[in-house]
């Protein structure tokens, strides 16, 4: 469904030094998979994820979605992104819009859905996350956990084929992590294709169909959760797991 071929990404710092953040990644995500990416900070996990929907433009290599190379000239990336949702660490709800407008603006303006149809869908999703009573408030009055659940259903309102999660629980107070992970689990069980960058090893073990370990811009190891956690191959992963588990 999404695959990358020899993907690299360099960042140029203001002082002119070039940092090689991704050093040639090949990977393929199939429909229905839940790929969980773990690794130390600065390993390139988030950059990799952000390259998948081209929020970051790769320096070289290919990003292929639905058999089409999307990082080349002439591709309508807006159209691709309607099929690829994204959830951010800092929620990024639209601060100037009510929750209902947050959920319906893209379906109405981008997919040309009628207001009624968009709101009907939003209401049913709000019910699923038990936040229907928040439909007409602004994001600033929600807790972090509530914001993140809204952010997830905002992505779902576009009926995406895959959702990318960029450390969705890292900015949450500890007691709110559970409510977000629970909803992500429910989403996974429903069959959504997911690519999740996270530090939640429990989630990786429980929900992942594959777990990837990234370090210094490369995928060092890839395995089923069971093998990944119980039988890590590389010394780097063994070291990492011994610190986080």
């Amino acid at each position, binding site marked *: 469904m999404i695959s990358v071929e020899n993907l690299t990404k360099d960042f140029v710092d203001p002082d002119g030094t070039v940092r090689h953040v991704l050093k040639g990644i090949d990977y393929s995500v199939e429909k229905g998979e839940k790929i969980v990416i773990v690794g130390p900070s600065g390993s390139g996990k988030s950059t990799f994820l952000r390259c998948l929907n081209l929020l970051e*433009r790769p320096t070289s290599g290919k990003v292929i979605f639905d058999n089409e190379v999307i990082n080349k000239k002439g591709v309508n990336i807006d159209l691709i992104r*309607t099929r690829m*949702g*994204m959830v951010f660490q*800092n929620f990024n709800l639209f*601060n100037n819009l009510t929750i209902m407008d947050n959920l319906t603006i893209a379906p109405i303006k981008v997919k040309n859905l009628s207001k009624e149809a968009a709101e009907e869908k939003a209401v049913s999703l709000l019910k699923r996350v038990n936040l229907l009573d928040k439909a007409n408030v602004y994001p600033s009055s929600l807790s972090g956990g509530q914001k993140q659940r809204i952010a997830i259903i905002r992505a779902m309102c*576009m009926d995406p084929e895959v959702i990318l999660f960029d450390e969705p629980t890292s900015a949450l107070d500890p007691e709110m992590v559970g409510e977000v992970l629970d909803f992500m689990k429910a989403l996974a069980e429903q069959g959504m294709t997911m690519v999740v960058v996270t530090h939640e090893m429990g989630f990786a073990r429980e929900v992942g169909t594959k777990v990837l370990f990234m370090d210094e811009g490369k995928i060092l190891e890839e395995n089923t959760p069971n093998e990944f956690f119980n039988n890590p191959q590389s010394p780097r992963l063994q070291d990492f797991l011994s610190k986080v588990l």
Partner: protein
Amino acid sequence: MFSELARKFTAAFITENRWQLYIKGLGVTLEVSIFAAIIGILLGTVLALMKLSEREDGKKSILNTIATVYVDIIRGTPSVLQLLIMWFIVFSTFNNGIIVSSISFGLNSAAYVSEIVRAGILAVDRGQTEAGRSIGMSKAMTMRYIVLPQALKNIIPPLGNEFITLLKETAIVGYVSLTDLTRAANMIASRTYEAFMPLIGAAVIYFVVIKLLTILLAHVERRLRASDKR
């Protein structure tokens, strides 16, 4: 002593209905300021968007360069000179001082407004743009529905200051033979050989108008901030 002041006051404001000249002058001042502000805001916003435009590879776009050069030139030359160039060179065959002055001040103000708008837009969290783009909204849509409404809160207070500056700067339109408030006062001063009353009078009028504007602005600012707490 008192009768002397009363005589000067009468000469400056009452005789020959001279007070009408101040009112007319103020009218010209406001007219030029308001037209210029409209041009400044519209063109300034366009310039700001040009400055913020970047190519897909992150390099400067040609639009960016054009806007930067424009702002540099405007900021690097005196506004009196810009006005004279407009009047005697660019629009030399056109003798409507109000329109030429409005255009000249509008083009001038746009340069400053563009920096205000640009800073206001940049102050909106980058995550807002990323969220808009990630859900399939185009650059323009994200700007219009998400970023600009939030930027407005940052933009309106300094924009008010810019308007106040503009209002006072128009005092130089006398150079292109417009009779604004300053020139009206000056004319009366030379007519009556008494500078004190007309000049202080004009200063008081400017002061009152700007004070009223300041109060209005403070009110708007309070309301903008109140909506943060919703």
